[in-house]
């Protein structure tokens, strides 16, 4: 029995009620071959979006920030106005905190996504010897992740190779984020950000958008290149399909794409309130686009979760129906045969 069929089997056998199904997902999650780790995905998205929200709203107000506070503003802590005051009195500091926080969070989220993507890829690929190789790799990675080390020269070699690959991917993703942050900053300036002032703030906004939208994609899918070999061509086409045609095909792609769209749209919408003549401190550049981007990211993440969940349920239902139908079809056949 090939391991790829295992989750399907388990699903097939335990598909009576929703609760049971969720329970059935959980053991599937622990297996490295989990194609759609629904429960774990839900919990990770929940934690991740909460932490992103925390980063945006609380991190800039931590005690470290007060080191940089002007002395005049001290001594007024505690009132609800202060929440806004600490967040808005120095937009640069706020932005830096959000960027730092999301940097850490995105690395975690992206590595989780990458694992999922690798699992998914391994899960869907079929063919005997290929599968065994990948299973071996997966087992190794799982061991690596859980901290257990197998001894042996080959193991060490494989592990080093794996680590090298991961590091290389991480390095490329970082590079992609940095490059796109510059591109985003230029785009933001083209959209009307000041040309000759507030450049650092604009850059931090670009960096934030790049971290939220590009980093996880670059780490999970690999950085697209202009090379002409098959792998880079496929990679490039995947990027184009995702980010230009906006048509994801797998749950992982949705989990990458929707938050990215949300980030960009949120940033775009966030620029609108700046124009109002309310003279509020939160209208300072670039607070509203930054918070718009963060909110868009969170909404996009949850949206991807919802869509993925619904599609998953739909697919399961579809499969059940098909199985039921095929079962029905086979039954009368039996009776017919008996009859004849």
């Amino acid at each position, binding site marked *: 029995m090939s391991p790829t069929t295992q989750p399907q089997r388990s699903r097939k056998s335990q598909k009576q009620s929703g609760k049971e199904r969720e329970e059935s997902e959980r053991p599937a999650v622990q297996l490295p071959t989990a194609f759609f780790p629904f429960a774990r995905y839900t919990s990770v998205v929940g934690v991740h979006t909460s932490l992103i929200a925390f980063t945006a709203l609380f991190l800039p107000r931590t005690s470290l920030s007060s080191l940089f506070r002007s002395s005049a503003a001290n001594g007024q802590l505690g009132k609800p106005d202060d929440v806004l005051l600490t967040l808005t009195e120095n937009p640069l500091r706020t932005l830096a905190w959000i960027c730092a926080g999301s940097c850490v969070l995105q690395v975690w989220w992206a590595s989780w996504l990458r694992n999922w993507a690798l699992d998914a890829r391994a899960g869907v690929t079929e063919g005997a010897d290929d599968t065994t190789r990948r299973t071996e790799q997966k087992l190794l990675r799982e061991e690596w992740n859980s901290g257990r080390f197998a001894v042996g020269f080959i193991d060490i070699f494989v592990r080093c190779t794996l680590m090298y690959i991961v590091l290389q991917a991480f390095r490329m993703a970082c590079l992609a984020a940095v490059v796109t942050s510059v591109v985003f900053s230029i785009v933001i*300036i*083209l*959209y*009307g950000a000041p*040309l000759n002032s507030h450049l650092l703030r604009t850059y931090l906004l670009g960096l934030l958008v790049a971290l939220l939208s590009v980093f996880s994609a670059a780490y999970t899918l690999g950085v697209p290149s202009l090379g002409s070999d098959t792998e880079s061509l496929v990679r490039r086409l995947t990027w*184009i399909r995702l*980010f*230009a*045609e*906006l048509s994801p095909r797998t749950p992982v792609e949705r989990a990458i794409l929707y938050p990215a769209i949300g980030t960009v749209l949120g940033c*775009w919408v966030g*620029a609108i309130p700046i*124009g*109002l*003549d*309310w003279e509020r401190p939160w209208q300072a550049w670039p607070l509203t686009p930054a918070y718009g981007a963060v909110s868009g990211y969170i909404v996009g993440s949850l949206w991807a979760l919802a869509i993925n969940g619904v599609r998953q349920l739909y697919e399961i239902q579809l499969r059940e129906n098909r199985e039921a139908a095929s079962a029905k079809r086979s039954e009368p056949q039996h009776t017919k045969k008996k009859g004849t």
Partner: protein
Amino acid sequence: MWSRGAQFICWVFAVHLIGIWLFTRGFLLTRLALSEVNSCDVSDPNCTLSPSYKRMVFLIIDALRFDFISPDPPLPSSPYYHNVLSLPAELTKAQPDRSIIYYAFPDPPTTTLQRIKGITTGSLPTFVDMGSNFGGSSILEDSLIRQLYEAGKQIAFMGDDTWMSVFPTSFAPNMTFPYDSFNVEDLHSVDEGVIRHLLPLLHHVGHRLGPDHPTMQAKLQQMDNVLRETVELLDDDTLLVLLGDHGMDRKGDHGGDGELETSAGLWLYSKTRPLVDPQADIPAHLLTNRTYPGASTAHRSVQQIDLVPSLSLLLGLPIPFNNLGTVIPELFWTGKQATSFEHALRTNAAQVKRYLDAYRLSPAGSELDSAWKDIQSAWQGAMEGQVPALTMNMFTRYALEACRMLWAQFNITLIGLGLTTLLSSSLATFAVYDSLGRIVQWEPWLDRIASMTLRWSGIGTVSGLVVAFPLRPYVKDVAIFDYVAFGAAIASSFAVIKQALPARRLEIGSISSIPLPLVLHTLSFMSNSYTFWEDHVIPYLLLTSIAPFVLTGFTAPTPRLRTRILFFSSLFAVCVRLIAISTVCREEQQPYCHVTFFSGSTITTPPGLILAIVVPIAFGLPSAIRQYLKISKSDQGLANILLPTIFPSVLTSSSFVWILEWMESSEVLGPSCSGALRLTRTTLAWLSIGTILVVALTLWWLIPLCIKVETSEPAANERREVTIIGFANALGSPYLIFWLIFFSLVFTTTQLAGQVILALATVALLSFLEVVDSVRDVRALNLAFSSSKPSEFLAQSQETRSTLSTVGLRFSEVTPIALLALQVFFGTGHQAVISTIQWKSAFILTSSLTYPLSPLLVILNSLGPVFVFALAVPLIATWNTPPLPYPPSTAQNATLRACLGISLYFTSLLLGSAISSAWLRRHLMVWKVFAPRFMLAALCLVAVDVAVIVGYVIGFGRISVAVGRVFGSMPGANDAAKARKSQ
């Protein structure tokens, strides 16, 4: 050249004009400011009364509402502003014969400038006072200030510098202390300045904090103290007048006609001499009372402009010519005898009659048509009445009411009719625009529509007439013409809508088909912030509008298309961003805006950069355009004649015109050279405009095509081969040359910085055309790939291909052109305010004002950018569209749709701004922000419609005729075209 399409566009234009006319008549109140001065002889008893006071202290506290000084404030009273400024009430109680408080009614609009005019001239200022000084704000009408000045009195002034702009010469220079009033953040500098010299202002506190604020109390307290000191220092011959120019609403704002905004306080005080006779037996009907909202009793009330005749007569001055106020009875009535009052009233009534007669004879006299009969009979009554005090008062009051009706009240009916017309016309335009994209046999269909507009306009005219007569007595101030025009417009619009939307459900499915930039742009006029920051909103929307093209660019199947799309979109974006740098800020944008647009009045010295680059840019622009034409090899024929020689010289000399203008006005070479400079620049300007209009236009008319036909010598046994270079862009390239002719005209009238902007915008436009062309190729290729038999698809004729929505014209391709037009308008130093009109451009051809040349040049300078870029819209349809099969039905259809599309865009903007200004007509900002934007939108729509007609009828019409002459007669032209296309 005249076609069904042209007829339909003209119908659209006519309906737009009707809509604008109806709405404007209802909304934009205008009045002719007469410049006559009452210069009667003071010794003549019919001129004025003998002076009761020699001097007057006239204190205006901005936004001093009646309840601030009322002895009987409304309950519950506020600790912040009631009974704080208590001196008037105290003195009135203690000395009722020397002090009197009135509840004054200031006429809306209660904006500061309009109230200053009202208080000093006694007239009813409207938002737009037409007169000889449309641009400036100084008051040229007769006024109290002017009468004082003419009488040789010295006028000291201290306070808000708005007064200095309206009376620049009247105040005694050594006793004048103006302070900048605009900075409402600064609560004290004006007041402290005035207190140093005399008196304060509430206004800023109100604007910033609203009346319910401790600062308000402190401010009123401070003023009460100042008043007490003033009263201390008053001498016997001096009359003290304290008034608020208008009230304020609960938030501290003013400008509209709300009850609190039109509640101002007025206090008159004479220190020793009796001012009023408490025993005076004044008939009750002469004394009006009004109850302040929430107050327990009614208080004696007057019209604020009644102050003007009253003070004039008290000071022994002639009443200002334009006055419509009536003398206040108490001030002239002593005991039981009314002789003095009757005398005053007679003088007053005669002056009002004189004014009305003069207005009746003026060019705007027809405004009084409806009221004139009643005015005449009221005057007859006043002359013959048994009780003159009664009848003459009735006459002056009637005159005021009649004028108020004309000048101060919105006509909601007309506003509604105008909006309905605009809305139905835009629906009709949209229906036709949409149908043209779907119907393959569109020409006969459009024929039907065009004849239908004519027929139904006739039916509408008749029914308008029929309806008008029974309705007239019930609906005020709607002329027969209004009914007729409305009837014609609405009937034909509905006929078109019904015909073009044959019970077809609108497909709501695709979200991408909603023109998001247009929706946002239209909605933005609901907010004053976005309206005055529109110059920043537009680049944002513009970049948003090309984002879908960039995304398509990434999906391009070939690297060449991808590179082209990405490169040209980036170039477009960079040009747009560079244009956005240039701005003349409007005052609401301060302090967040820096003026970067050089024009003599905003920045006095041009940035060296502009001076350095403008000539190379003007010279190089035609070669840049040639590079774009080279892409499609269409830099042949006419383009080869005009682009290397005529256009560079014309554009360069246009730049020199403005460089010389700067040299002349800044006297770089010293004053002696100015005559020579003037002569040179006039000659240069005439030369460039003459060359464009005579040489370029004639050449274009004669040989519009930019193609080259090469015939190879036939080799043995072979047919002769004819190669047409520039075939692929045979429609687009001549239109570009046609467009450049108008572009050069506008370029000549535009100042230096604006010329750079225009050049950038041209690059942006051409880049956008390339993007659109490539994106269409991408769509077509993708469609071909996805269809089951690509070869079959490619073999299809151009005609059927265009009706497929994938390659036909889309509204999203028109949107960037429309936005670019407005972007260039803002970039060339304009804003949606009257004060940014660049009057300088009136004098480039002549050194003095000449009609009709000078106004024409100003119009070209102001609306030229919008006109020119609307004129460019057929380029989207014709660029890189080969002219075969002939007649170019597909290109014609697309051109017509592009024209209707941009007209729709600007109609939508007009609707947005019209609805917002009608809806917010009581808003503080309506006359500063919303109404000017509406005016700009109306002018832009007219400019766009004219451009579209010129472009479609003359430009495209002439080109298709010329193309027909070359290709139409070709044997087997269609086969050749098909063969070429499938290659």
